[in-house]
C-alpha cells in the first residue's frame, strides 16, 4: 500500500433556531427560574413542552408551571466529560421527572461518584448564575432531600417580558479525512508540479483528479498517466462577487480547463489576461506559486485558440 494522506477535518457552524411559541415560553421561563410544561390531550404534563400532541397530533398550547424539584427516573455515569458538556467534572446523565410533570427531562446531576446516584433519588435544579434563555440556564441538578409535591401544576400564560424567540446552536463535528490511494498519489505529484491522472482499463478515459475507480465502468483504475501541463479553456464564468474566505480580487475568471491528455475538465482561475478577453478555446498553462500545493492559476500560452470541435466533447 503506498502512502495515503490523512488530516483532521473540522466542520463547525453556529446554526440559528426560531423557537416558535412553545419553546420560546419554555426557554424564556428558564431565564426567569420558571419551568414550564404543556398539558397533552390525555392530561399528562410534558416537560420539556412540545408543540404537538405525540398521540393525537393536535396543537398543544396549555402551558403549566412545574416544580424545580423532582425524582431521578434513570441515570448513567459519565466518568470523563468532553468539551462543551454541562460540567467539567465527572457527572451523571439523568432523566428527571419534575414534580407535577408526567415525563422526564434529560440533564446532568452533580454528584461525587456513581455510588451517590440512584433511581428514585430526589433532586433539584441548580440555576446558572447568568441566565440567557437556554437549556443551560439549568446549570445541573443536585441531590436534595424532599417530599414529592402532590399538587396539580398551575396554568401559566407563557408570557414574559422580552421573550427569547431564537437561539444559536453551534454544531461541531471532528473527522479525520483520508483522501485515499489515488488522490494521495495525485496530491504528491502536484508537489513535483506534475499532474497525474489514472486511465480506466475498460473505457480508456483518463481521470484527473483520479478517484481510484471509473464512475461509469465501475472498475478500479491504476494505470497512471501524466497529463498537461498545457490545456484548453472549455467554458468559464466571470466572478464579480467576492468570496468571504478567498483572497482573490474580483472580477476574476473561473474556468473549466481540459488539460492535454485528460478526458474531463478540471476547474481553475485564469489570469495574465484581461478578464473580458478570456474565451472558450483559449490555450493555457499552469502558474505555480512557491511552496503551494496547488496550481495558483492558469495563464495564456500564446498558442492559437483550439478549434471548438477539438474540445466540444469535454464541455
Amino acid at each position, binding site marked *: 500500500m503506498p502512502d495515503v494522506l490523512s*488530516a483532521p*477535518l*473540522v*466542520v463547525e*457552524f453556529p*446554526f*440559528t*433556531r*426560531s*423557537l*416558535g411559541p412553545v419553546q420560546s415560553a419554555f426557554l424564556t421561563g428558564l431565564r426567569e427560574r420558571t419551568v414550564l410544561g404543556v398539558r397533552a390531550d390525555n392530561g399528562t404534563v410534558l416537560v420539556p413542552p412540545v*408543540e*404537538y400532541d*405525540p*398521540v*393525537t*397530533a393536535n*396543537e398543544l398550547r396549555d402551558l403549566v408551571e412545574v416544580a424545580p424539584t423532582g425524582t431521578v427516573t434513570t441515570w448513567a455515569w459519565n466518568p470523563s466529560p468532553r468539551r462543551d458538556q454541562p460540567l467539567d467534572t465527572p457527572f451523571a446523565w439523568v432523566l428527571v421527572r419534575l414534580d407535577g410533570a408526567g415525563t422526564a427531562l434529560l440533564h446532568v446531576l452533580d454528584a461525587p461518584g456513581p455510588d451517590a446516584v440512584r433511581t428514585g433519588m430526589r433532586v433539584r435544579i441548580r440555576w446558572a448564575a447568568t441566565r440567557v434563555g437556554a437549556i443551560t440556564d439549568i446549570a445541573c441538578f443536585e441531590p436534595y432531600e424532599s417530599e414529592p409535591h402532590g399538587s396539580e401544576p398551575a396554568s401559566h400564560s407563557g408570557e414574559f417580558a422580552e421573550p427569547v*424567540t*431564537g437561539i444559536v*446552536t453551534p*454544531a461541531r463535528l471532528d473527522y479525520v*479525512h483520508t*483522501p485515499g490511494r489515488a*488522490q494521495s498519489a495525485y*496530491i504528491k505529484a502536484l508537489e513535483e508540479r506534475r499532474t497525474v491522472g489514472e486511465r480506466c482499463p475498460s*473505457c480508456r*478515459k*483518463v*481521470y484527473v483528479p483520479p478517484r481510484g475507480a*471509473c*464512475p*461509469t465502468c465501475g472498475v478500479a483504475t491504476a494505470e497512471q498517466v501524466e497529463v498537461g501541463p498545457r490545456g484548453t479553456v*472549455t*467554458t*468559464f*464564468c*466571470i*466572478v*464579480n*462577487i467576492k*468570496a468571504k*474566505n*478567498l483572497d*482573490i480580487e474580483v*472580477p476574476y475568471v*473561473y*474556468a*473549466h480547463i481540459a488539460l492535454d491528455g485528460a*478526458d*474531463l475538465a478540471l*476547474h481553475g*482561475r485564469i489570469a495574465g489576461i484581461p478578464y473580458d478577453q478570456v474565451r*472558450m478555446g483559449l490555450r493555457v498553462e499552469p502558474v505555480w506559486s512557491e511552496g503551494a*500545493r*496547488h496550481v495558483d492559476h492558469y495563464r495564456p500560452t500564446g498558442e492559437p485558440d483550439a478549434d*471548438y470541435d477539438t474540445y*466540444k*466533447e469535454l*464541455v
Partner: protein
Amino acid sequence: MPEEPVAVVGIGQTKHVAARHDVSIAGLVREAAVRALEDAGLGWADIDAVVIGKAPDFFEGVMMPELYLADALGAVGKPMLRVHTAGSVGGSTALVAANLVAARVHRTVLTLAFEKQSESNAMWGLSLPVPFQQPLLAGAGGFFAPHVRAYMRRAGAPDTVGSLVAYKDRRNALKNPYAHIHDHDLTLEKVQSSPMLWDPVRYSETCPSSDGACAMILTDRAGAARSPHPPAWVHGGAMRSEPTLFAGKDFVSPQAGKDCAADVYRQARITDPRREIDAVEMYVPFSWYEPMWLENLGFADEGEGWKLTEAGVTELDGDLPVNPSGGVLSTNPIGASGMIRFAEAALQVRGRAGEHQVDGAARALGHAYGGGSQFFAMWLVGAEPPPG
C-alpha cells in the same frame, strides 16, 4: 395485478418568505400539512404513512429532522420515511409516496418537503474545508454559470434570453399568493441592468433563498372518490441518477434527464410532449435553465429551446406555459422546491391554481433536478384518471 392509480387530493404550501422567525421548523411543516389536509377534507387519522424530504442535514444542522418532526406531522404509530436526493428531493419524495400508494402498501400518504434557509447555510453546508483540496472558487452560481455559457455557445442563443425568463417568472409570481418574491415594480430593463454576478448570470436571473414547506396528500381510487375537490391523477413518474462528474458528462443536457423524461412519457403514453402537455413546472434556479431543460425534456430539438422562450411560447398565455407559479426563480426553499413543482403541476390539472391557472390544463409535467445536475425526478399528472 396492475398498479393502483394514484390521485393527488390535497395540496398545502406556506407563504414562502426570506425568514419565518415566528415558527420553529415543526411549526413550519405543520402549516403546510394542515393546509393539505384541509384541501383533502381529511384529518390526521386518515393518513397511513408520512414521507418527508429536505436538502442535506448540514443545511440547518438538524440531523435526521424526520425524528424531531414525527409528532408535528401526526406520524406517531405510522411508518415515516425520509428521502435524500439533494435539490431534487422534493420530487423524489413525492414519487416515493406515490409508489407506496401505487403498490397498495398504503392507501393514503402525506408527503412533505421543507427548508428553513434563514436558519441554514447552504454555502457552508456544500463547501466543507476538505484537507488537501483547493477551496471552491466560485459558489453555486459559479458552478452553473460555465454550463450556461456552454449552452449559449452550443445553441447559438443570443445573450438576451436569460432576462426574458427571469422577467416572465417574476411576473407570474405576482399571480401566486404563496410565491416568495413579489416585485410589482419589476421591468425587463431592470432585469437586464441588474448586476452581473457570475457572467453570464445576472443577479435577477438567480433564485432567492426562502423559508417554506409544501405538502401533498396522495391516495388511491377509493380515496379520490371521497375527495371534495377534483384530484390530479399521476400518469407517470420516474427518477434517474448519474455521477456528478464523469468523462463524457453532458452538463448542458444530462443523459439522466433525457432518460427520466422518456420514461415518464412512455408511462403516460405521450409521444409529442410539446403538443400533448399543457403546462410545465420545471426546476429553473438560474433563468437560462429554462431553454436548457426545454431541450433536455424533449419540448424542443437540441439548440432550439431558446427560440420557444424568445417567441413567448412559455409565457402564461403561450401555448406551453412554463412555471406559471413563478418557479424556483421566485421561490426557493431548497428541499421543498422540487415538491412545489410537482404540486403546482397538480394544481393546474385540478383547476385550482387561481390567478396563475392555465386555461383548460389537462396534463402537466412537474420536474426537479439536484446535485451537480445528477438527480432527476419528474411526474406527469392529468385531470382524468390514467387509462386502463
